[in-house]
């Protein structure tokens, strides 16, 4: 088979449906990455326009441009959209588009999940846009502090749009994070050991793990606040045993890691692009990986620096102040490693390099003001002033927007296959750079002169008029610059000047393919021997196209790739991907119906939507089943690999491990909340304690002991092709027993809408119940698969997946039941 015929055969197998219909059924990572990025930039424009309205309002004193009600919506939506609908999805889009190409494989681990995540993002974002168009957008500031955001002080639907819409969007962040983690660990080219991974993949891995552990506290907070608003269970009301500080802890436990979740992928772009612009290799690869990991750990230990003015004892603040300054160390390791890289090479001033310089100047200032606000006494003065607003824009614009623009100019030839023809970019950069610094340098100063953030207007005698006008003029220069960047990108995407393959002479694998990329990425998969395969072998792309790598012969019309051992990169299993399907968009639409029913309080619709999601999920797992055993597959170079279904550790198992990691963080945050309210909140002890019941605990713990055991018996039996139905039946009964114990506890919780104690017990019980139902459902589907002949010793990968969920259920239910009943048994 020659290269052209191989290209045609693979394109037939991997192509999306033609035209716009393809958008709705595609599961291809290149398509979805582009869709993520275009949507994210649409939201960037929307939110940028909101920023312009803010600056127009503040340009002059006593401005009557927008009244406070509208102005509060504008700044709340500006922050919310930038954080949740621009920054995170941009990372997702970059990672989804780039990772399989950089890692030398054909798609991400779970193609349908990528599509599901995208549609949850698109629908959730649309919900928030609609609220804005109707003038009922969230208006309590992007961090939504109760009691202001509670039912008493914000009775309208505005806050519900935020809590429900953002939670819907977060599904896409969690989905993408699971996807990215498993893809990086398992879906790489043969021979790509962890230390040969492109540096961007390391950053993406760290970021994805941070999303899995950083977002659940926010999701928990949103759930609790929405439950309080909708059903009156008090978690944040001080007079009913709640505490508004709990929200601040949960929010910033998410909110600070979030800053690094935004910065790390951008740093990954710098670490990838900068060495290419300097014609050298990155200085200190290992040190940079270590710095990124250190940043991730440290970033979870400094959320309290957003709460320096809440009255926490000074010694407590000292600890978080130290952690906040310490985080500057791994950051500076990266900065100086990059500067050292520039010293080792010969930097050339191409477009990406201009934006990298913009990054250096801006981000270093942002980092230095960050150290300033980490000083507790200084923060007491500038907290909640324009100084902090200026600082965070230096960090986020410098640490995210400039690197992303560098990345766009760097990878644009890859996406479009074209060469830059119009030269607007250089001029646009000057406007963006100048406009940004004029706007936000001024804002530091006016903050020191006492201007609070979020005020709708001010008086001439405050003495801020001239500075604000300068700042507003700067912001319009910035906006014109960004509009020109957009124009530059669009013009250069549509002008037909074909570009070369690998125009930058880069060494990473994403350039070892034709541009724009074919839907299958690589006609055959490379054997990787070092970090920059293309630098060692400039003809690699041609050799792969000629079929000199793995999986060179397309067969059976199926989308194939292989997985590797996590550490060594040795190939271990053969994987067949699902093809184009509308299942993801339908499922996310039904998921949206669930959220909509909560938003509009159409509670009769909620169970119907949930049943719909469950039915579609069953179809989802059913669709990949086979009725016959696949033999080991010849992948070329004399290597035969068993199918991934014939293992206990398939992609589904890995995905569940990381999804459960996020879930465990959610549960851990819930337990933290319980302990926090118990020990810190005013209004404790509660008027009535929970009455413990030996019977309920007995039933629950018996289920928790039996379920995992029965599942282990089933996993062993299926390996021998023995009968598994009895063991599955027993574990189903165990899940039901746990469900009954949790439901009883939930129903007997004392006075759930009268005190936070009963409210928290209700939520804990509901958590156990939901997981029991989920586990029972999984076992039921597994049983149906067994009866339908879809399982065997060589098609057994679903068993360990269900086993994980049962283990998780048993562990959490034990903790829940003990937390509720044990205090009552103690003297």
């Amino acid at each position, binding site marked *: 088979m020659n290269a052209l015929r191989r290209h045609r055969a693979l394109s037939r197998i991997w192509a999306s449906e033609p035209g716009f219909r393809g958008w709705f059924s595609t599961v291809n990572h290149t398509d979805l990455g582009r869709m993520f990025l275009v949507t994210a930039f649409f939201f960037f424009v929307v939110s940028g326009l909101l920023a312009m309205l803010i600056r127009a309002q503040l340009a002059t004193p006593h401005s009557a441009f927008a009244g*406070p009600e509208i102005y509060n919506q504008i700044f709340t939506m500006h922050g919310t959209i930038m954080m949740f609908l621009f920054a995170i999805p941009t990372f997702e889009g970059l990672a989804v588009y780039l990772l399989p190409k950089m890692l030398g494989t054909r798609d991400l681990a779970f193609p349908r999940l990528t599509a599901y995540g995208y549609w949850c993002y698109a629908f959730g974002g649309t919900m928030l846009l609609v609220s804005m168009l109707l003038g009922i957008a969230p208006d309590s500031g992007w961090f939504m502090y109760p009691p202001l955001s509670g039912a008493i002080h914000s009775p309208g639907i505005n806050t519900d749009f935020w809590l429900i819409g953002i939670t819907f969007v977060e599904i896409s962040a969690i989905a993408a994070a699971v996807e990215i983690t498993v893809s990086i660990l398992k879906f790489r080219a043969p021979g790509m050991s962890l230390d040969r991974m492109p540096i961007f993949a390391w950053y993406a891995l760290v970021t994805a793990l941070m999303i899995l552990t950083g977002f659940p506290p926010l999701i928990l907070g949103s759930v609790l606040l929405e439950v309080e608003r909708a059903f009156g269970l008090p978690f944040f009301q001080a007079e009913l045993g709640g505490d508004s500080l709990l929200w601040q802890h949960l929010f910033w436990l998410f909110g600070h890691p979030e800053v690094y979740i935004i910065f790390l992928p951008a740093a990954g772009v710098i670490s990838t692009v900068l060495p290419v612009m300097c014609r050298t290799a990155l*200085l200190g690869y290992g040190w940079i990986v270590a710095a990124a990991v250190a940043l991730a750990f440290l970033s979870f230990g400094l959320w309290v620096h957003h709460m320096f003015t809440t009255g926490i004892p000074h010694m407590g603040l000292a600890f978080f102040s130290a952690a906040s300054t310490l985080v500057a160390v791994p950051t500076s390791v990266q900065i100086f490693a990059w500067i*050292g890289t520039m010293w080792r*090479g010969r930097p050339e*001033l191409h477009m990406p390099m201009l934006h990298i310089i913009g990054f250096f100047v801006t981000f270093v*200032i942002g980092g230095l003001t960050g150290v300033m606000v980490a*000083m507790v006494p200084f923060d007491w003065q500038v907290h909640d002033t324009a100084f902090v607003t200026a600082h965070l824009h230096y960090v986020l614009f410098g640490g995210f927007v400039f690197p992303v623009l560098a990345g766009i100019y760097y990878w644009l030839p890859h996406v479009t296959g074209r060469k830059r023809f119009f030269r607007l970019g250089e001029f646009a950069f000057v406007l963006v750079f100048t406009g940004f610094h004029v706007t936000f340098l001024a804002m530091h100063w006016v903050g020191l002169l006492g201007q*609070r953030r979020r005020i709708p*207007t001010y008086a001439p005698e405050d*003495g801020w008029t001239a500075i604000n006008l300068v700042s507003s003029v700067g912001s319009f220069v910035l906006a014109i610059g960004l509009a020109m960047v957009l124009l530059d990108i669009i013009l250069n995407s549509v002008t037909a000047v074909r570009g070369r393959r690998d125009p930058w002479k880069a060494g990473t694998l994403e350039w070892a393919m034709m541009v724009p990329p074919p839907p299958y990425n690589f006609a055959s998969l490379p054997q990787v021997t070092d970090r920059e395969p293309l630098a060692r072998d400039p003809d690699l792309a041609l050799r792969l196209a000629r079929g000199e790598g793995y999986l060179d012969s397309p067969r059976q019309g199926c989308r194939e790739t292989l997985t590797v051992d996590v550490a060594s990169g040795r190939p271990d299993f053969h994987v067949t991907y699902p093809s184009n399907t509308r299942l993801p968009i339908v499922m996310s639409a039904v998921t949206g119906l669930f959220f909509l029913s909560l938003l509009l309080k159409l509670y009769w619709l909620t169970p119907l939507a949930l049943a719909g999601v469950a039915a579609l999920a069953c179809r989802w797992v059913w669709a990949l089943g086979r009725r016959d055993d696949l033999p080991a597959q010849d992948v070329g170079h004399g290597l035969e690999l068993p199918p991934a279904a014939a293992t206990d550790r398939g992609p589904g198992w890995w995905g569940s491990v990381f999804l459960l990691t996020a879930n465990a963080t959610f549960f851990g945050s819930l337990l933290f909340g319980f302990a926090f309210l118990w020990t810190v909140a005013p209004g404790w002890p509660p008027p009535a304690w929970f009455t413990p019941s030996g019977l309920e605990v007995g039933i629950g713990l018996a289920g928790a002991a039996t379920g995992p055991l029965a599942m282990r018996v089933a996993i062993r039996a299926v390996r021998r092709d023995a009968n598994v139905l009895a063991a599955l039946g027993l574990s189903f009964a165990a899940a039901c027993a746990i469900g009954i114990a949790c439901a009883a506890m939930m129903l007997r919780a004392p006075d759930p809408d009268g005190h936070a104690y009963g409210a928290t017990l209700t939520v804990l019980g509901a958590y156990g119940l939901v997981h029991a139902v989920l586990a029972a459902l999984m076992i039921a589907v597994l049983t149906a698969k067994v009866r339908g002949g879809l399982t065997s010793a060589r098609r057994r990968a679903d068993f360990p997946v269900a086993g994980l969920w049962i283990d998780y259920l048993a562990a959490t239910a034990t903790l829940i039941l003990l937390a509720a009943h044990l205090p009552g048994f103690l003297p």
Partner: protein
Amino acid sequence: MGTTTLVTLAGCEGALSVVDPAGPAAREIATLWWVLLAGATLIFALVMVLTALPFLRRDGPGSERHGIRTWVIGLGLAFPMAVLAALLAYGLVIGERLLPRAGDEVVEVAATGSRDGWLFTYPDAADRTTSAVLHIPAGRPVDVVITTGDVIHAFWVPRLAGKLDAIPGHVNILRIEADAPGTYRGLSAEFSGAGYGDLTFTVTAHDAAGWTAFLAGEPE
């Protein structure tokens, strides 16, 4: 009066200016700010020079090991650790000094935030309540006991001290002090919904005689 001139020249003056302090706490923090600004400017200049030089020089690359020793370990690790340790110690010492500690001179007042405005009461004059104006003696440390009647607010008089939140169900105590008699503007500094922009108050600092007269119930 050299400082005053400098402050005027730099445009620091203002009724709400953090860098135009009128009390010991605000002065300590203003000094901290100038130290931080000077240090940050030096470090920024250093990094910018290091970033610019590679565009000008044209000698060959050094070894990887040498590069890591200089850039990663020297400038990346050791340099920030030394600077940050010193800063942290300085910040903590100032923070400790600003805490409310018991003393004979200390006066206590109470501030209650609400979306309708601030209310102030005085344990030393049980029947006095003032709204939107807080009375304190000048030249004596004052502990403000901060609570709220509805949502979260923050009590902030920029020229006297930093801010502290008023949180439902919690009581926070902020130490402020004015050097001299006069009026100082104060702000509610945590977003509290519509009307937030207008949530302001003033602090009137009396001389000793004026304070005695205020406590005795003379009209303001």
